[in-house]
């Protein structure tokens, strides 16, 4: 507080003259912290460390379960007590491998098709809508936005998928996920910011509209396209709400379950063979191993998250 007072005084006082003569002692930019500041800093960092531990501890606990033997689960805190890869072996290469890799394949199919399809379709739609004087722009936007605000509910969409014969197939989840109005709005906002001179120049050079879009607009919009693709990938990989609606427990449905759905069934112990005694003893470890294995693709994308958070944090906002 003392320093603050000094700073408030006019610089002509004798004290200030002395201070300026000894800048290393009390430089205005290096205000010494008061005791209350130090206290606040300590409280602050303590709270944050508790928060970080609260995140990391359950993760470590679960990870070590995946690497532990079922008989000593009791003693696992943050490290495996009797380290073994048996649970992973069961999930990835043993009796559980067929189910796991089938679910994994379904998830890859789902994520791949939706990520490419949804973002391509929405970016293409956003391009004309980003033109200031596009005809009936307001009406067309309304056509899309209404679907974001209101849906008829589960029964009609289930009956529609039923009439297409897509119930209990992964394609019902894929098709329902393609339409994504939020991303359409993100793309539209971004495209509006691209200077039209660039398009003009490309047109003068003889580029067709398709060429203009794919060779000029898309490369210039890679940041937003990257963000949207990332969120689509995470959403598809982790989501199982639509799968719960469209994919049941029938023989056909079992072939179509995506990975998150398979993990959900595992949580219910619905996916495990109850006659296997080793499996029953290691059910928790097998479950943990399957979940850890399923995180790996998302972990591979984590450098992107880091870059995104370190960078501009561009599309945190609702509107983009």
């Amino acid at each position: 507080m003392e320093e603050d007072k000094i700073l408030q005084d006019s610089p002509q006082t004798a004290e200030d003259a002395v201070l300026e003569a000894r800048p290393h002692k009390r430089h205005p930019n290096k205000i010494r912290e008061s005791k209350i500041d130090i206290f606040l800093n300590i409280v602050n960092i303590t709270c944050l460390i508790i928060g970080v531990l609260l995140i990391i501890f359950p993760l470590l606990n679960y990870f070590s379960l995946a690497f532990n033997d079922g008989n000593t689960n009791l003693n696992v805190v943050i490290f495996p007590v009797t380290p073994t890869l048996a649970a992973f072996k069961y999930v990835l290469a043993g009796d559980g491998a067929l189910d796991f890799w089938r679910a994994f394949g379904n998830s890859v199919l789902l994520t791949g098709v939706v990520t490419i399809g949804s973002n391509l379709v929405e970016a293409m739609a956003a391009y004309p809508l980003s033109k200031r004087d596009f005809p009936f722009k307001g009406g067309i936007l309304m056509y899309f936005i209404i679907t974001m605000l209101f849906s008829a509910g589960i029964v009609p969409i289930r009956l529609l998928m039923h009439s297409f014969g897509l119930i209990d197939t992964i394609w019902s989840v894929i098709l329902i996920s393609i339409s994504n109005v939020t991303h359409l709005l993100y793309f539209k906002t971004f495209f509006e910011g691209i200077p039209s001179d660039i398009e003009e120049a490309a047109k003068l050079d003889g580029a067709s509209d398709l060429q203009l879009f794919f060779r000029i607009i898309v490369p210039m919009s890679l940041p937003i396209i990257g963000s949207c693709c990332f969120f689509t990938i995470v959403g598809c990989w982790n989501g199982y709400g639509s799968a719960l609606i469209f994919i049941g427990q029938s023989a056909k449905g079992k072939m179509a379950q995506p990975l998150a759905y398979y993990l959900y069934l595992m949580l219910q112990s619905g996916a495990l063979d109850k006659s296997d005694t080793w499996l029953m003893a290691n059910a928790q470890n097998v479950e943990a191993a399957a979940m850890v294995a399923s995180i790996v693709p998302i972990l591979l994308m984590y450098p992107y998250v880091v870059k995104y958070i370190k960078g501009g944090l561009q599309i945190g906002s609702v509107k983009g």
Partner: protein
Amino acid sequence: MEDYVNQTSDSPAVQAAGETASLPADPVLGTETVKPISEEPGYWKSQWKRIKKYRKILFFLIPAAAFTLIFSYIPMFGILFAFKGPEFNLTKGDILYNLTHGSWTFANFGNIFVDDSFWRAVGNTLIINVIRLLICFPLSIIIAVQLSELKNQTLSKVILIILTIPNFLSWAIVIGIWSGILHPDTGVIGQLTGHIMAQDAWFKPLAVFFSAWKGAGWGCILFYSAIVAIDKTYYESATLEGANRLQKMWYLTLPSILPTIALMLVLNISGMMATGFEQIYTMMQINPGDLKNSQIVLDTYIYEISVFTGTDIPFATALGVFNGAIALALMLIGNAITTKTMKRGLW
């Protein structure tokens, strides 16, 4: 409805008005067709001209429009099921047959209000969401302020990255992790507390805690980036004026991010009818007890009667439509509030 059209884009009327004013400045239109305002053609004529101008990129809209039509608009005709009598039965004929035969009634909507499960679901939904609003929402703001108060901004970004990890895990994994820790026999905490995940009284607190664990870090990114964007000179002058840390937090940081807070608050309240189906349903399903009946929320109730007890299709549809209508009304109210107070729409 008119309001949000103005917010998101130019409505035709605004466009037409804006065009006459800014026509010469438009780089696309300006080079070819600059005309005196008096020769400006009529509305339809000008729309037709623009269609011709943009005819080559019109087809860019077709895939998105088709998907929306098939998977969003065609199901909306299914709302009609909600007005059919109890003899609606898909085993007796296809959808069209059932729609053209049998009686029409409003009774399905009336039945919603005399349905005990419905009121229990509404109560649980509101309780969970209000507690979430009181705990998870401020938590994100507090963490964001805390992170911004750290001297070392690299450290704060590292912490932020760690806090966002759970957001990228599936709900199945989050609940798997915690049911491991809370496992009554082997869990680190569960050994002390017993099987609290199966207890009625613990369901809602745990649901809120899991939401906070998964979402708080991600939720604070928005506020954190808003705080980082505040002009540093404000803080310098506040320091010169003699403000201490807490005063700067209260009188400078919080008011500066107030628009963001208000917007997120309205968004949260608009989503009051949804609890996060995956989370609540998974939490119910992993317990064999009767949590399913006592802790039912709207999302799970609608799901259960729509997918599993598929006999009473008119009632299930009516419930879905009713829920959708409430959600729509909340969104429109929220949008009206933000448009009035913050001059921007929700979307």
